[in-house]
């Protein structure tokens, strides 16, 4: 076991999968010579050569489209979006060509589109996106967002081995801030399985990505006041681990959904709806959602802080829930 950063975990996942399977190759802007804007792919060009680490023109539709075509031919492309915000430029190719292919024609499209998402680093309105909700209503796509280095590696490997198109959101706030233990041997974290990060009986926080740590911080704080919250890290956003979600609800009867994208139309709606439909009998209080404000992501630190959920806001929301 070695302790590595989230970003190192991602790099290892790519390198190991490329070594394991020569159908895996990388495509993206500045991922080769430069090693990627965040250096996720650093060293991979030297190791695997320019045929498998392809520096592309500035063309999101072309690179995702090319990945679709390569996947048709049996390859396993992994595409980098320099920031995940740019996935908007290839929304059509992903939702229409990649996502619907298997259903329409029986041809699966095993590809991964990965890139840095999320805020908290003053990236402003175009470098801070959490776009999961915009893709959640497109059957055929899978969506993943790891919160730990262990998961970053294990989920990325699982995503690359998956037979379907996977959107892999790496929270840039975690790249160098999160470090944890990762096995030396090959492992994957299967898609579709949530993880209980902290056990509790009084309420459940359902979250993922960079919000997991904030939720855990809130939980620590709440524990001082005698409130024991369970923290569920979804890890995969599509398909959702309904069972884990409902198990936690059954246990605590109180649910707070937390995410970093704006509240309205966010994935919190889907989560709350599942609870309200299938966990209704367990509920002792309204299902609460805590998310970012319904605005674009503001750039200036005081604004961004006001915009996003943090540990204090999470703790306050849990208190309200418990006092209901």
């Amino acid at each position, binding site marked *: 076991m070695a302790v590595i950063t989230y970003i190192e975990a991602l790099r290892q996942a790519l390198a190991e999968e490329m070594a394991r399977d020569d159908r895996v190759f990388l495509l993206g802007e500045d991922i080769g010579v430069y090693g990627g804007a965040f250096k996720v792919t650093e060293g991979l060009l030297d190791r695997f050569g320019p045929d498998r680490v392809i520096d592309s*023109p500035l*063309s999101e*539709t072309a690179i995702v*489209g090319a990945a679709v075509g*390569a996947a048709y031919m049996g390859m396993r492309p992994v595409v980098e979006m320099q920031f995940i915000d740019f996935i908007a430029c290839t929304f059509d190719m992903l939702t229409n060509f990649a996502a619907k292919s298997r259903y329409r024609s029986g041809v699966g499209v095993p590809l991964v589109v990965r890139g840095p998402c999320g805020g908290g680093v003053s990236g402003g309105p175009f470098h801070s996106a959490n776009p999961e909700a915009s893709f959640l209503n497109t059957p055929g796509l899978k969506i993943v967002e790891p919160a730990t280095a262990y998961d970053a590696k294990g989920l990325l490997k699982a995503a690359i081995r998956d037979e379907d198109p996977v959107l892999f959101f790496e929270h840039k706030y975690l790249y160098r801030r999160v470090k944890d233990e990762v096995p030396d041997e090959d492992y994957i974290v299967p898609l579709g399985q949530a993880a209980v990060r902290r056990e509790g009986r009084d309420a459940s926080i359902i979250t993922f990505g960079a919000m997991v740590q904030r939720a855990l911080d809130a939980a620590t704080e709440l524990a001082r006041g005698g409130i024991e919250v369970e923290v569920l890290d979804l890890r995969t956003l599509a398909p959702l681990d309904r069972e884990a979600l409902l198990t936690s609800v059954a246990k605590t009867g109180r649910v707070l959904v937390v995410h970093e994208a704006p509240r309205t139309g966010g994935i919190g709606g889907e989560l709350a709806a599942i609870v309200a439909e299938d966990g209704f009998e367990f509920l002792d209080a309204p299902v609460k959602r805590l998310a970012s404000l319904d605005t674009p992501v503001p750039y200036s630190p005081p604004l961004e802080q006001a915009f996003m959920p943090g540990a204090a806001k999470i703790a306050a929301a849990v208190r309200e829930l418990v006092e209901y």
Partner: protein
Amino acid sequence: MLNQPTLLELYYYARLTRDVEERLAILYRTNHVVGGLYRSLGQEGESVASALALGPSDIIAPLIRNLGSLLARGVRPRDVFAQYMARGLSPSRGRDLNLHFSHVPPAAAEEPTIIGPISMLGDLIPVLAGAVLAARMQQRALVALTYIGDGGTSTGAFHEGMNFAAVQHLPLIVIAEDNKFAYSTPLAQQMAIDRIDQRAEAYGVAHEMVDGNDMVAVYEATKRAVDRGRDGQGPTLLGVDTMRMRGHAEHDDMRYVPKAMLHEWAARDPIARLRSRLAESGVATPAELDDIDRQTKVFAETEASEALAQPMPDPADVTRDVYAGMTPFPGRRVELLRSPFREHGTAVHDP
């Protein structure tokens, strides 16, 4: 000049394309077709001729008007009829329409790969670039052929895909079909250039313009592009000058098309032209050509009947195959006729 079998093949598939479409038009009028019918009347030549210039395993991706390309690559008319009638055993199993279906054989199969279009025009260009990029990685000496309408060349996807193919020096051949209209929009409102192949200048891609209704010219130009691609000389944009002789779809009254234009182009019909050429040059006698005409008609008819006999999809199948884990349809691959003209051409139509 091309050899006799190739010339006859060109003629055969062009006729077959027209006959299949004529049969589809009847099925459309009798409400057997579900949704719209998109014809290639007057343009069959360029589809057929370009597709026939490919090697056996080369990749092809048609648009919805490139029925001729699919037939020339061995797709059975039955499957096309079934697609248009939304039948449960159609290649897309009733999930998608007209020519929206794919065929991806194993690498060893020596069969063409067919990548079906989606409706979003332009998207096929980067996808095909990726297909042939993959083939190069796999050390398979394949070229890819796809099509784009005059309208389609205005999309961002076209641009990004062409540029990507150029930078990567990929053996991608794109036939840009100037058929004078994109739905109702004439060329001059689509682009401020006269020759569609000039789009290629932005990419440093080889290009030429050919008479799209001269099947031999299209065949030869495509062949040159195939050879260039196979030879490592990168992509080609091949402009074809042709005319859409029906509306965008069958419901379209074409009120925006000047009648004179239709008259002018009727005289340039690609099939009639090839026919005279074959007859005049002695490649085939009129009787032999009539014989092919009969064959294709019968073949289209038999295939239509077979499709008509197929059931509609079972609603219970609606959730299959969204993700890999789900029950897939067994035997979903499209069965291609190896060389329908030679193998089946006689077997099927000469009972």
